[in-house]
C-alpha cells in the first residue's frame, strides 16, 4: 500500500512537471484502483461504473493543479472520487425522481453492461459540442498527438491560446459529461 502510494505519487509529480510518459503510467495504474473503488460502491448500478471511472480520470486531470505535494496522494484522489460519486448519485436520484420507478429505462441501461472497459459516451460527439477554439486544440494536441506549436499554426491561434483552449475545453467536457450522465 505504502509502496504503491509512493510510486503513484512520484509518477504524478513527474506528470506535474511535464513528463507525459510518467503521467500516462500514473493514470493507467490509477485506473484499476478507481474502478475497484467505484465498483464496490456502485454495485447496484454496474452500467455506471466505467462512465464514472472515466469521469474521475478527467476530473483528476483537470484538477491536478490542486494536488499539494505535501499531502498523501490517496487522500487527494479519494476526496475527488467521493465527491464525484456523491454528485453522480445525487444526479441519478434527481432524474429518477422524475420517472416512474418501474420505468424500463433502468433495464435498458443494465443491458448495456456488455463491455465493462468501455464508457457509454462518445468523445467525438462530445467534442462536436465545443466551440472551435477548444475543440480544435483538443483534437490536434490531445487526440492526434501534434505539438502545441503545430496546433497553433493549423488553427491560427497563439500557443498560449491553444493551451488555454485545451484546459477550458477539457473542463467544458467534464460539464457535458455531468449533464448527460
Amino acid at each position: 500500500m505504502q509502496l504503491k502510494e509512493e510510486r503513484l505519487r512520484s509518477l504524478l509529480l513527474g506528470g506535474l512537471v511535464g513528463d507525459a510518459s510518467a503521467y500516462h503510467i500514473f493514470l493507467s495504474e490509477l485506473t484499476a484502483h478507481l474502478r475497484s473503488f467505484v465498483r464496490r460502491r456502485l454495485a447496484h448500478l454496474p452500467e455506471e461504473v466505467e462512465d464514472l471511472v472515466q469521469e474521475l480520470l478527467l476530473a483528476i486531470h483537470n484538477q491536478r493543479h490542486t494536488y499539494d505535494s505535501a499531502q498523501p496522494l490517496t487522500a487527494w484522489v479519494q476526496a475527488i472520487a467521493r465527491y464525484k460519486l456523491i454528485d453522480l448519485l445525487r444526479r441519478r436520484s434527481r432524474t429518477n425522481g422524475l420517472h416512474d420507478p418501474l420505468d424500463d429505462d433502468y433495464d435498458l441501461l443494465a443491458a448495456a453492461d456488455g463491455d465493462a472497459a468501455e464508457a457509454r459516451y462518445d468523445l467525438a460527439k462530445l467534442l462536436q459540442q465545443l466551440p472551435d477554439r477548444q475543440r480544435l486544440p483538443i483534437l490536434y494536441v490531445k487526440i492526434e498527438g501534434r505539438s502545441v506549436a503545430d496546433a497553433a499554426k493549423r488553427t491560427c491561434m497563439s500557443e498560449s491560446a491553444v493551451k488555454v483552449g485545451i484546459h477550458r475545453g477539457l473542463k467544458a467536457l467534464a460539464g457535458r459529461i455531468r449533464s448527460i450522465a
Partner: protein
Amino acid sequence: MKTEDWVSMLATGVDAIDPKRTARRHFLAITGGLLAALAFTGGILRFNPALSNRMLLEPMFWVREAYCAALALLGFVAVTRLARPGIRLGLAPAGVVTVVVVMWTFAATVLLRAPAQNRSHLLFGTSAAVCPFLIALVAVPLFIAILWVLRDLAPTRLRLAGAAAGFAAGSLGALVYSLHCPELAAPFFGTWYLLGMLIPTSLGAWLGPRLMRW
C-alpha cells in the same frame, strides 16, 4: 470509448503545471478585490476624515482593525484549505469562534462598566442600521474575486467553501469599510460588523453548490 484510449488522450501532450499558479490567482483576486472595495469606500462612502489625525491614536481603532484582520485571515485560511480535495479544514472555524467570543466578552465588559444611559449608544452608535449592509456591499468585489479563484480549484464541500468565501470577503470588506466608519465601541463592531460579515457568508453558502460544481 475505451478507458485506455481515454487515458492516452488525457496524457498526450500534457503540459507542466505552474506551481505558483494558484498562489498567483489568490494574489490577483485579493489585490483586485481590495482595490475595488477601497475605491467604493473612498469614492462613494468617503474615508473618515479623522483617519488623518486622531483616529490612528485611538487604541480602539486598532482593536477594531485587528478584529477584522484576524477574522479575514482565518476566513482566507479556510478558503485555501477547502479549495483542495482531501485537505482537512482544521482549526480555522474554531479560531473564528474564539475571536468572536473574546470580542463579545470584551464588549460585554465595556457595556457592564458603562453608565446605564450610555449603553444603548455604545451598542447602536449612529450607524447600526446601515453598517451591516454597507459592509456587505463593500465585500461584493472581494466575494466575486474569491469565487473566481475557487472556481478554478476543486472544493468538495461546496456549501462550506461558499460560506468560507463569503466570510473571508465579508471580514476583509469590514476591514476596508472601517476606514469610513466612525464607530469605535467594541459592542458596536462586535455586533454589526459581524452581522455584515454574515450576509456574504450566508449568500456564499447558498451560492456555493450552484456556482462551484465541477
